[in-house]
């Protein structure tokens, strides 16, 4: 058992979210690692996946399993939280309910939500703009093979 760098888990999280039709209907501008790409017209409805921590649970010779933690948030430029909350519901369904598929080098074990996130952010440039942010911190355990 060797697993890998863990990039396969990053990619699988993004792919799972991007592949959910209901989620992409709510946040059609895409799912991105760390930051949304700068583009015109500006993106106003998207999901950000931020890698936070990783831990190898060591066994003899190789890790028994690995634990990845991600902050996953939908971000919607709106004054109301209705759409972003609906997107957060889909994020929860995709990551928590469904097994994570397409993990090269790993098998999905379980996903736990450690914390719910819901906040409103004031845009750093235009103080009249409000960003609705909702999602959660997710802990994903995978078994390397």
């Amino acid at each position: 058992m060797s697993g890998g760098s863990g990039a396969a888990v990053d990619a699988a999280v993004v792919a799972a979210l991007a592949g959910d039709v209901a989620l992409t209907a709510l946040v059609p501008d895409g799912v991105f690692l760390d930051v949304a790409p700068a583009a015109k017209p500006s993106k106003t409805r998207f999901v950000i996946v931020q890698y936070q921590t990783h831990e190898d649970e060591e066994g003899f010779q190789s890790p028994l399993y690995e634990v990845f933690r991600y902050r996953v948030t939908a971000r919607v430029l709106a004054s109301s939280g209705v759409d972003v909350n609906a997107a957060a519901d889909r994020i929860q369904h995709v990551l928590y309910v469904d097994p994570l598929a397409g993990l090269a080098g790993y098998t999905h074990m379980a996903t736990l939500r450690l914390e719910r996130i819901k906040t409103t952010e004031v845009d750093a440039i235009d103080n009249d703009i409000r960003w609705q942010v909702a999602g959660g911190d997710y802990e994903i355990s995978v078994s390397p093979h």
Partner: protein
Amino acid sequence: MARIHGKKGDVLLDPTGGATGVSLASCDGWELNLEKDRVDVTCFQDENKQSVLGLPSYSGSMSGAWDSATTPEQLFAVIFGDVPAMITLIPNTLEETFLFKGLGNLDGALSVSAKGAVTWSSKFDAAGPWTMEPAILP
């Protein structure tokens, strides 16, 4: 020789009790207990309590993560059987000639939590003579 880390430890099991041990998959720890019985031989007029030593117990435990591909066949089949397994405990596979081995009676336990991995543990005691290799002069 140097002080070593436990990451390269290993447990070999031969369920038939023979000499063909196979590395126990998904194992993350073992302990070996060489505790000896103390027999009280204190007598009249002794000025302190005295004891004599019995034999080392050669009992211990192992632990790891449940893997349905290997754990049932490698470990639980031995636990459910009544044939003592040959257990080889290796502190470091980079120095694999340093080991403890002998026949053992195995039992086991499984732990399942909604907040973590499914894990197993197993205890053993000696079912025959045990040795440490390479042998040292007492």
